[in-house]
């Protein structure tokens, strides 16, 4: 395996209460890694550690190391803004910025220093094409992003993340607020992106997990119970708790 993300005895606590305990695992480069587990098991906290969005939570502390490309991103020297450029995030509910469709996509490149209008036009177009939204919004790039349908908004959020040219995409139950058709579209987009990006996808829908996963992680009560190639974890889990969860007992 060629890991891009590596957790080593990684723990998270909020106000002294442990939320994630001693996680050690590696996530391979590219492909889709699905994180499953019951509600409240720490899936979101796990995901938000990777772009340090957890830093916004008051009283949150990290222990251990979390490396991306062999660099510990928990290092106080780490530039968080640069980290978040490299690690994009798509939230559970679409969260467009209070701007036009164009500005939503150009926001990331803009804050990271791109000022050339011609280049920006290209980035916006390429990003929107990549998520299959370009033909739908081509003529109304200056419309408010909120006028898009919820499914389109979520694809806009995906395009917005891609515009930053990240290496990793974090998806936190990204399809759960969408209708089945839109959800399917997003899944297909992610599938097509998985050749070039390392995608981490949190879900509690087992069927979706099986559909998407190349690699899988099962979490329970703040611990990583089991991780490995998806077909192995789903068809032949090693831990009884994984088996129980997959059978719907846990």
């Amino acid at each position, binding site marked *: 395996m060629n890991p891009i993300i590596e957790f080593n005895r990684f723990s998270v606590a909020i106000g002294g209460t442990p939320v994630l305990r001693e996680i050690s695992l590696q996530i391979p480069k590219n492909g889709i890694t699905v994180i499953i587990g019951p509600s409240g098991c720490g899936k979101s906290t796990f995901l938000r550690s990777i772009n340090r*969005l957890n830093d916004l939570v008051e009283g949150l502390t990290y222990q251990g190391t979390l490396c991306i490309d062999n660099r510990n991103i928990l290092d106080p020297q780490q530039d968080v803004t640069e980290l978040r450029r490299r690690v994009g995030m798509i*939230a559970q509910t679409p*969260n*467009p*910025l209070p701007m*036009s469709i164009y500005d939503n996509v150009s926001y990331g490149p803009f804050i*990271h220093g791109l000022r050339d209008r011609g280049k920006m036009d290209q980035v916006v177009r390429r990003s929107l094409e990549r998520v299959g939204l370009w033909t739908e919004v081509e003529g109304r790039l200056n419309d408010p*992003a909120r006028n898009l349908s919820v499914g389109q908004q979520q694809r806009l959020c995906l395009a917005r993340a891609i515009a930053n040219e990240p290496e990793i995409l974090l998806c936190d139950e990204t399809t759960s607020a969408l209708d089945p058709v839109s959800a399917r579209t997003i899944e297909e987009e992610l599938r097509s992106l998985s050749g070039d990006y390392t995608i981490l996808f949190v879900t509690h829908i087992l069927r979706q997990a099986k559909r998407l996963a190349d690699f899988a992680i099962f979490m329970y009560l703040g611990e990583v119970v089991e991780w490995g190639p998806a077909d192995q974890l789903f068809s032949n889990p090693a831990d009884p708790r994984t088996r129980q969860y997959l059978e719907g007992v846990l």
Partner: protein
Amino acid sequence: MNGRHLEELLFRALMVCSILLVTGTCVLVIGVVFLKGAGSLTPDMLLKGSEGGYYLGRGGGIANAILGSLYLAGGAILIATLLALPVAWFLNQYADKSRLAGMIRFFLDAACGIPSIVYGAVVFLLMVAVGQRASLLWGCITVALFITPLLARAMDEVMQMVPSLIREASYGLGATDFETLLYVVTRQALPGLVTAVLLAFGRGIGDAASVLFTAGYTDRIPVSIMDPVATLPLAIFYQVNTPLAEVQSRAYASGFILLVIVLSSCTVSRILSRRLSKYCIH
């Protein structure tokens, strides 16, 4: 009819009564001012300053007070906005929910409760101490001091309404605190911020007590910020109780114009906030 239905009816009637009383008073005030004031409005009233002394001179109009008030409230709202926006920014982005923020908010709320005459008196004492006379500049400063806490708290409240999801989206793309504040939070809050500024302008332009000692009063239109300046509220205060009908009519006209200015700023704020909310996320 059972008790619950009676209760429903009773409280509805109470609500309707309250609404009628409140709107009725408002309509009455506006009606009286318009009836009294509209009759006094002549071209000279609007275009000339008072002549021969504002208390006893029969000639001229209230151009000195109209322009004076606009200068004064304009300057004050400029200063107040420049002061209040950073306060609201700080409260929201850097200190939100901290004890420091709680203390600042408490302090601002207390400052909002201080009567404007106290601001006027304090600034007057300061002016005396440094040997300054009443002028447009000191009037601006006093009104600015008096509306800044109101404005800062209003802006703070508006920014607190910005959904955290939107901030998170910005941080998630690698924005700094200030970029998030400037491009996202302020953008989303803009309609509310503009409303807050225009309402504070209305408060500032209508206040008599804060400018009583600090801006002075004069027949002339100021040509320098160190000149004393006439204002509409004081035009009413000084002129409504004279025995001369001509002078009294200047007071009525002042009330009319003041009301028109305040109502216009309300209307403008409504229109602007609707326009500016085009891109806002609900």
